[in-house]
């Protein structure tokens, strides 16, 4: 739901980086987004099409690498993806664990011309 502010930041980061390397235009933007980051790809795309107008990033393809949430079990050390209504470890049955993936949220790289 906060995709407007997030997309505004993405455009600024890309514009800055693109200008820094002397790009004529940015052709693609590679984003890493965890499933527990609360962000919706389509919504970012929607705002991007508006906010990138008049910048180096205009027309760039947004590539989303989604990272599933992952628990590290505190009892047995197994790593597992929590299911929607079930956070029990499939190996030992403990509930939950240390969240080791799923909150990612960054621009990994851009492709420029």
């Amino acid at each position, binding site marked *: *739901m906060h995709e407007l502010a997030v997309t505004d930041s993405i455009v600024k*980061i890309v514009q800055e980086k693109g200008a820094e390397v002397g790009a004529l235009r940015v052709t693609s933007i590679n984003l890493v987004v965890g499933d527990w980051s*609360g962000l919706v790809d389509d919504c970012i795309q929607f705002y991007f099409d508006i906010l990138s107008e008049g910048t180096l990033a205009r027309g760039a393809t947004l590539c989303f690498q989604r990272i599933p*949430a992952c628990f590290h079990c505190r009892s047995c050390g197994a790593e597992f993806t929590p299911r929607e*209504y079930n956070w029990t470890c499939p190996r030992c049955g403990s509930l*939950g664990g240390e969240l080791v993936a799923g909150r990612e949220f960054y621009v990994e790289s*851009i492709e420029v011309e």
Partner: protein
Amino acid sequence: MQEARYDIPVVEKILSTNDQLAEENARRFDRSGVTVVNIMAAPGGGKTSLILRTIEALRGRLRIGVIEGDVASQVDSQRIAAAHVPVVQINTGGQCHLDANMIRGALDRLPLEEIDLLLVENVGNLICPVAFKLGEHRRVAITSAPEGDDKPYKYPAIFHAVDAVVINKLDLLPHLDFDLAAFRDLVLALNPNVALFDVSCKTGQGIGEWVAWLMDEDV
């Protein structure tokens, strides 16, 4: 002619600008000796009620200030002002969360040197406020019992991000199917170091434990 294409590594956190502003706010808070608590909950969870109870319980012990975040209206800040503490209302005008820049703007309207504890009431929302640091020392989520004990399954990020969870409206427990033990287990499964408080802002139940945690100087 096709231009050559290059891959440029960036690896920049998308909200790094907000994070930097939050760090500036945090330095300002530390210089003024203010402890800042960011209170997040769904609309109607009891954020303003908890703040009013906290003001009442700490009167004469800590000097409290409040920042009220809402999409629109001054209703909440008027309730706080009636309790005779300094308060600033931020109206986000549609934005679903407070961010560090809004807090920075509000600080110029607060007598920071005369405040020990600044309570920030975030916009009622369980998703967006989690992503935006404000420069706070502690983050708190309120879940009210009528919302259901499966809240952590639906909004895990907030329960992972906070230092305390206040379980509010427990006076209603006899009328609800809310399984308090199951809720606590889920939150602890995600965040074993979290402080949990069983509270009713209506009756005052649990407010003593909650303010004792706030008063703890080991922040």
